[in-house]
């Protein structure tokens, strides 16, 4: 078990970290998410669960979405507290992205789900359509359509910025 487990950690840690970092834009949080994912894998295997690569990406993505949701709640709370005050943080800076700089990072983070995750998993992690479909509980054709839309939206958004 431990040899198999170490192999999985070595093979997938960088890919999962890249996904978490792209979604969260924060290195420490991304590191925590990857660690939690592998702890879940350990518990999952000890419980006799079936393992697939898509499972790791699904767990990582769900954790990132939870963090983003929590950030949004915190942002809404900040807004509520700052009513009447002149200073209010930008939604993009506080909610979505605190480290990823540049227009592309911001444009990717502004994509809706599942477009953002699909695009990152495909372009950064190089996952196959089948693994993507399994990780996001989509059909193969849905995956291809969503990925096409994600690329189109991203390009349009960037073209507007650069025009």
């Amino acid at each position, binding site marked *: 078990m*431990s040899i198999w*487990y*170490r192999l999985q*950690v070595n093979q997938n*840690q*960088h890919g*999962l*970290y*890249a996904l978490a*970092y*792209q979604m969260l834009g924060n*290195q420490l949080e991304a*590191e925590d998410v*990857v*660690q939690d994912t*592998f*702890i879940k894998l*350990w518990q999952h295997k000890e419980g006799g669960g079936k393992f697939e690569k898509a499972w790791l990406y699904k767990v990582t993505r769900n954790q990132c979405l939870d963090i983003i949701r929590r950030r949004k709640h915190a942002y809404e709370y900040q807004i509520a507290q700052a009513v009447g005050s002149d200073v209010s943080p930008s939604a993009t800076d506080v909610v979505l992205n605190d480290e990823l700089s*540049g227009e*592309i*990072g911001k444009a990717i983070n502004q994509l809706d789900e599942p477009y953002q995750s699909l695009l*990152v998993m495909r*372009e*950064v992690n*190089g996952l196959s359509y089948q693994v993507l479909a399994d990780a996001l509980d989509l059909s193969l054709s849905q995956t291809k359509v969503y990925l096409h839309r994600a690329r189109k939206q*991203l*390009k349009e958004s*960037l*073209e507007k910025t*650069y*025009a």
Partner: protein
Amino acid sequence: MRKQRVENQVTEELTHYFEQARKLKCPPSMKQNLYQKIGLNQGSNWLNSSWFKPALAFSFVAVFSLGLVWQNHSQTQQDQLATAEKDMQIAMHYMQKISAKTLQDVNTHGIKPAIIVPVSKSIAQMSMAQI
């Protein structure tokens, strides 16, 4: 023309961005903390694993038993060879005695017990010992 240029710029920058993103590595601290949390020490995992000590004990017993069996087998072989050599010496002794006699003094009945039986017995033993 301008639109085409913007499209090209976007494509180039996206390609570059994704290339950089692919190079991103997870910090080693993640793995160290992870193994600590779940109780997998990186260095001494072999010694600490649950199967290692029983496997080591079993290997010792197996090697020791094999050594004993091998020693016993080679001792038996040496004993058989020594017996065969002794029988051969006896047979040679009789051969010399008989060759000293004239043909008239020797008959088939006399040779059989004196030479053929010891010689065939010792050759059989030697070949058994070789096996």
